[in-house]
C-alpha cells in the first residue's frame, strides 16, 4: 500500500466529482429533495387532526359545550358555520366533506332529560356529509365514539371497560424521523453502487485501466482509494441530509458512533457488489442496467421509505434477505429507537456480508485482458 498513490487517486476523483455536475446532483441535491418531498408529505402523519364544520342552530351555552368537547379530543379542528345558512349548500360550496348540525331546542331537551328523567326526551345530531370523500368515514367513526361516551356519561354510571394507549417506544417518534435513516442508507447505497460501476466500466472502456496496469499502482491502492472516495461522498451527502432534516423538520435523532459504522458497512457492501458487477457485465450499459436491477428491489422492498409492517408477510420475510434491510433497521435502531442491541446484531450481520462481498469483489477485479 502506498499512501501517495492513494492520495493521487483521491485528488483526481474529487476533482472529477466537483467538475461533473450530475454526480454532484445525485449525491447531494437528490437525497435532499427526497427528504423534503417525503418529509412534507408525511409531516402530519404523526398528529392526525381532521377539519370539522359545526353548525349550532341552538346557540346556547349547553350546545356550545358539544363543540368544546369535540375540540378537546384533539382529533378535530373546529370551524363554525353560520346558523342562518343552509348546511348542505355550505358543504357543496366550500368543498367540505362533513357538517355536523346541532338542532334547535338542544338545551331545552337536555334539561328535560336531566331534570325530569324523561325517557322520551332526545336530540338528533345530523351529519351532512359527502359519501365520496375518503376521510369522511374515519371522521364519522370518531364522532360516533365521542357521542357514545357522552351518552354513557349522562347515564350516570362510569364505564366498566376502558382502554388505554401506551406506545412501545419510550418516546413517540415522528414519521419523518423514521424515514430519514432509510433515505441515508439508500443514498449511500446508490452512490457507492453506481459510483463503482460507472467509474470501473468507464475507465475500462477508455483504456485507462490498461494504462494503469503499466504503472506501479497496485490493486490494493486502487480499491482502497475507491473505497475512501465513496466514503467521503457518503459523509458529504449524509451531512447534507441531516442538516436539512434538522433545519426544516426539526427532527430529534441520536447521532453517535453507530452512524459512521453503518455508513462504512453500507459503502463496503455496495462497492463490493459494484466490483463484482463490473467483472461479470462487460458492457457499460448492461452494467448500469444490472446495477438498477439490484438497486430498485433494495430501495422498495427493504423498508427504506415505509415501515415493513405495512407489507404482506412474505415480503417482510424477503426483506430480511436484502443487505440494505440491515442498514436501514440498524440505523433506525440506533438513531430513532436507541436500541443498541439491535444495532449491534444488525451491524454484525451486514459486517459479515460486507466482508464477504468485498473479498469476492477484490478477487473479481482483474486488469490484464485475455489469459
Amino acid at each position, binding site marked *: 500500500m*502506498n499512501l*501517495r*498513490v492513494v*492520495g*493521487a487517486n483521491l*485528488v*483526481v476523483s474529487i*476533482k*472529477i466529482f466537483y*467538475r*461533473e455536475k450530475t454526480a454532484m446532483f445525485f449525491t447531494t441535491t437528490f437525497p435532499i429533495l427526497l427528504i423534503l418531498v417525503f418529509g412534507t408529505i408525511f409531516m402530519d402523519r404523526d398528529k392526525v387532526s381532521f377539519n370539522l364544520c359545526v353548525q349550532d342552530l341552538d346557540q346556547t351555552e349547553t350546545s356550545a359545550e358539544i363543540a368544546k368537547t369535540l375540540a378537546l379530543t384533539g382529533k378535530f379542528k373546529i370551524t363554525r358555520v353560520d346558523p342562518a345558512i343552509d348546511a348542505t349548500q355550505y358543504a357543496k360550496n366550500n368543498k367540505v366533506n362533513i357538517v355536523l348540525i346541532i338542532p334547535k331546542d338542544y338545551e331545552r331537551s337536555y334539561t328535560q332529560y336531566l331534570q325530569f328523567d324523561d325517557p322520551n326526551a332526545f336530540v338528533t345530531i345530523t351529519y351532512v356529509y359527502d359519501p365520496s370523500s375518503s376521510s369522511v368515514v374515519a371522521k364519522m367513526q370518531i364522532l360516533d365514539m365521542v357521542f357514545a361516551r357522552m351518552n354513557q356519561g349522562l347515564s350516570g354510571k362510569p364505564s366498566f371497560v376502558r382502554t388505554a394507549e401506551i406506545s412501545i417506544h419510550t418516546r413517540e417518534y415522528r414519521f419523518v424521523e423514521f424515514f430519514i435513516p432509510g433515505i441515508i442508507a439508500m443514498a449511500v447505497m446508490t452512490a457507492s453502487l453506481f459510483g463503482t460501476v460507472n467509474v470501473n466500466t468507464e475507465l475500462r472502456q*477508455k*483504456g*485507462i485501466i*490498461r*494504462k*494503469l*496496469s*503499466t*504503472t*506501479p*499502482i497496485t490493486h490494493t491502492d486502487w480499491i482502497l482509494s475507491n473505497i475512501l472516495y465513496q466514503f467521503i461522498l457518503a459523509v458529504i451527502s449524509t451531512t447534507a441530509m441531516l442538516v436539512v432534516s434538522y433545519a426544516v423538520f426539526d427532527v430529534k435523532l441520536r447521532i453517535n458512533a453507530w452512524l459512521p459504522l453503518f455508513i462504512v458497512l453500507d459503502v463496503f457492501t455496495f462497492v463490493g457488489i459494484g466490483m463484482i458487477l463490473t467483472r461479470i457485465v462487460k458492457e457499460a450499459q448492461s452494467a448500469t442496467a444490472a446495477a438498477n436491477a439490484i438497486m430498485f428491489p433494495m430501495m422498495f422492498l427493504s423498508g427504506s421509505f415505509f415501515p415493513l409492517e405495512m407489507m404482506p408477510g412474505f415480503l417482510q420475510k424477503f426483506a430480511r434477505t436484502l443487505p440494505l434491510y440491515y442498514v436501514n433497521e440498524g440505523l433506525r435502531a440506533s438513531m430513532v429507537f436507541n436500541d443498541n442491541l439491535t444495532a449491534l446484531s444488525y451491524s454484525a450481520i451486514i459486517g459479515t456480508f460486507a466482508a464477504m462481498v468485498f473479498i469476492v469483489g477484490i478477487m473479481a477485479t482483474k*486488469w*490484464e*485482458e*485475455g*489469459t
Partner: protein
Amino acid sequence: MTTEVEHAIEVENLKKLYGNLVAVDDISFNVRQGEVFAFLGPNGAGKTTTVEIVDTIRRPTSGKVRVLGMDVRKEKRDIVPRIGVLPQGFSSFDRITVRETMQYYSRLFCLRNADIDGLMDLVNLKDKAKEQYMKLSGGLKQRLGIAIALVNNPEVVFLDEPTTGLDPRARREVWEVLLGLKKEGKTVFLTTHYMEEAELLADTVAIISRGKIIAMDSPAQLIESNADNLVLTLHPVDEKAFEVVWKMGFEPVLNNHKNINVRVERTDDIRKILNALKDAGASLLSMDVRKPNLEQVFLKLTGEALNDGASGEKGVE
C-alpha cells in the same frame, strides 16, 4: 541506466492464443538498446497482442519474453517503473487538465521531481496546460499520451499505433516528437500500419502478418532486398484498365485511392501495358513508376495491401 544487457527486449518463440485463435504465432525478435523498432502490419496482424505482452499488460500463452533482462511473467513489478507505455487508443480522464494529468501519473510513479514542464515542452503542450482532456484535439491527446509515457523517464518506450486516426498534419506533429525521442537515444517499440511512419522513424522494421513476422531488417535493407521489380501506379478513369492489365497476366492491386498498382520486372513491361491500355481505349488520369517502398515490400511478401485501417479495403489478387 543498465548497460549489462545488450538487448532491451528479447522475445523467443512467443505464442498467444485467444481460445482457438492464434493471434501471435511463435515469433522471436530482439530490440537493441537505443534503437527504434517498428512492427508494421495491417489490422488484426497481432501487433497489439505482442506489444502488450512485452509491456506486461497481457500474459503470453507460451514463450520467453524479457525486458531489460527481466522476465515479464515474474518481474512485472521491477519492469514497470523502467518502461513507459502509450496503449492503443489511449484516453484519459475527461475533466482533468493536461498539467493535472501529468501530475497524477508522476505521483503514481512516486516521483517528486518529474520534469512536467520539460515534457509538456517536448510534446508542445505548454500553452494547453490548463485545458481539460476532453477539450483537446485527437493529435493533442496523443501527444499528451506520449508525454505521460515519458513521465518516469523510462528506458524503453512502447507506442501502440501513436498516429492512427490523426489527420496528416497532426500525424506529422507526433512524428516530430518521436524523432526527438530517437535523437535522445531512447529505446522505442512502435507499432503502426503506416509504412511512411516505419520508414521515417524505425531503425529496424518487422513486418507482421497473421501473427507471424515475415521479414525483419532496416527499412533500406528491406526495400533493397525486395527491389527486384518496379511499381507502376495507374490512376484510371474507369474499371476497364484493371481488366486489361489482369488479362495480360500481371497482378494488379487496387489501393485505397482507387489507383492500380502493378509490379513489373522490366521497363519493357511498362511499355506493353501502356500500349494495351491505349488499344483498349482505357484512358488514364495519371501514372507513375517507382522503385518499391515498404508498402510494396509488404505487398510482395504477403500478397495483401497495407491499407489504411479506417478504409478497410483489401487488395484484389
